[in-house]
């Protein structure tokens, strides 16, 4: 009895927290740290489907520079990230303002926000199916059906405008993320600030400009940085919608690394592309880190 008590006391101080963190840390080591090392090592091999580790120095990176697809892919990545980000932040802000400031009735605002959450909460496969149907090149597609009403021939939307398609599909998802964050930030502005502005004779525009925007400055920056980062590195919706095609017309860098690894089985080359992405992402994380100083998040324990 006494012994076990002693044991518990001893554990309580230092080993108990580590015990509680153990599964968490193990998962992170296996599926974050180990992969990072593997990617970093792999990037310098010419591993293919035979899974042989043959080091080839910086050949992969040379190859990347000379890759004929690379200029197109980088251009696509830039266009995709820039325009989707613009939709995410600006339209997210508009949605946030409309649903939580202009529409004062909470239930109505909530209803709209709920509807906008639908694409986000829908499984990606279903969401993409809706877009596929929208752009379907056959006369059954919604765009083509609408054209048929005015006697226009069906168009090959997805293959003629693949970049527009991926920007729209991703923008709609991202806008709801901005909407949620901005809404809750707007809602946390004290009501009497608006009342004071009204008393002082402020116009709607001035309230938005002088009260709301400054108050949600941090969330705005956060959403921008966060979305920038995730747009750079995620490709699930593109994979489902266009698969990067036709040819490489909608292929972005992150999807390219996936294709290289899992379609043409050039694991070494794919790893090298991934490594570039990881480095870029870490750079952005460092910026986010600097800008949003994490100190305040870390209160200390208050029982000794």
């Amino acid at each position, binding site marked *: 009895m006494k012994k076990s008590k002693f044991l518990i006391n001893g554990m309580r101080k230092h080993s108990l927290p580590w015990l*509680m963190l153990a599964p*968490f840390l193990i998962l992170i080591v296996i599926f*974050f740290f180990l992969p990072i090392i593997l990617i970093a090592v792999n990037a310098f091999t010419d591993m293919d489907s035979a899974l042989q580790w043959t080091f080839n120095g910086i050949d992969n990176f040379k190859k990347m520079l000379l890759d004929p697809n690379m200029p197109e892919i980088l251009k696509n990545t830039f266009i995709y990230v820039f325009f989707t980000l613009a939709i995410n932040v600006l339209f997210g802000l508009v949605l946030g303002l409309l649903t939580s400031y202009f529409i004062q*009735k909470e239930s109505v605002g909530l209803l709209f926000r709920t509807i906008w959450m639908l694409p986000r909460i829908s499984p990606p*496969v279903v969401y993409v199916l809706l877009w596929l149907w929208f752009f379907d090149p056959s006369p*059954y597609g919604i765009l083509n059906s609408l054209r048929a009403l005015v006697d226009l021939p069906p168009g090959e939307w997805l293959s003629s405008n693949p970049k527009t398609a991926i920007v729209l599909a991703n923008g709609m998802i991202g806008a709801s993320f901005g909407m949620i964050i901005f809404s809750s930030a707007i809602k946390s502005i004290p009501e009497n600030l608006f009342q004071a502005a009204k008393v002082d004779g402020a116009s709607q525009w001035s309230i938005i400009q002088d009260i709301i925007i400054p108050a949600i400055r941090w969330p705005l920056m956060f959403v921008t940085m966060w979305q920038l980062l995730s747009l750079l590195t995620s490709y699930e919706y593109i994979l489902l919608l266009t698969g990067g095609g036709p040819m490489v017309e909608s292929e972005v860098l*992150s999807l390219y690394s996936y294709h290289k690894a899992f379609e043409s089985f050039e694991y070494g080359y794919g790893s090298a592309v991934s490594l570039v992405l990881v480095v870029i992402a870490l750079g952005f*994380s460092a910026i986010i880190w600097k800008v949003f100083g994490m100190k305040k998040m870390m209160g200390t324990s208050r029982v000794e």
Partner: protein
Amino acid sequence: MEGIYEPKMEAPKIKTVSKWNARIPYIIAYGTLGITTLPIILMYLWLLMSSFSTQMKHGVIPVEFTLENWRFLWTNVEMVGSVYPSIWTATWNSFVFAGVLTVLEVIIGVMAGYALSRMEFPGRQGIMKMTMMLHAFPSVALLIAVFFILNFMGLFDSLLGVILVKTALQIPMTAWIIKGFFDDVPWDLEWAGLIDGCNRFKVWYTIVIPIIKPGIAAVSIFSFLAGWSEFLLLYTFVLSDDNITLSTYLQKLISDPNLVNYGLLSAVSLFYMIPVLIFFIFTQKSLMQVSAGGGKGV
């Protein structure tokens, strides 16, 4: 609406704004929202109608009611040369995948969240920083390496392997959110428990856990839905039909070149979305809080 936006006080000499002018911003607001929101509603409505209709006039107007599209529920879908696995296999697999994922994530997240929120130990700051960093980490860029690791562990083409991967990818965020719930429990309460005769562990499960239960429930739902919707990992790491899940099943149907049957596709989609819709309708308020809270956590 609340009165303050339509000032009732109208002092003399002040140019009174006409009723219509004051309403213009609201008309624009509702107009913009309505126009942008309508396509979303229509798209999901189409999903519903086309699943119960033989064909769609102009692609959008249902013509004749039928249950034909829902036949996949009792007979396996057959295509030229290939038979799809039963939808129920896929459903069961999706359910197991999402369920186990949720249990793992909540248990691990609660343990880690509590330790990070409430305990003092060397290395705590470091782990918190690392957790924060991992939020923003481009986990999908690591898939190639994860493939090796799963291969090495003999977990390639198994649901368990993907469950572990998915848990790991989500756990930094989940643990952080749960840490936030613990942070919100006042220290006073914990102290009161200590003084009332509990040890730290007892305080944890008799006082703290019951208080954060609603938060845990929200996180559970969130991670269940994330698991239910997962596509990329399952598509990449699971190949065999025995381990097919609803997302890969649907993707297989969509990409099947022999099939252009939106009726069937929308019926399967709707079937796939049932849990999502149920959870969504009943809990969307708390879900919003979690997802917003998760974002604010940075």
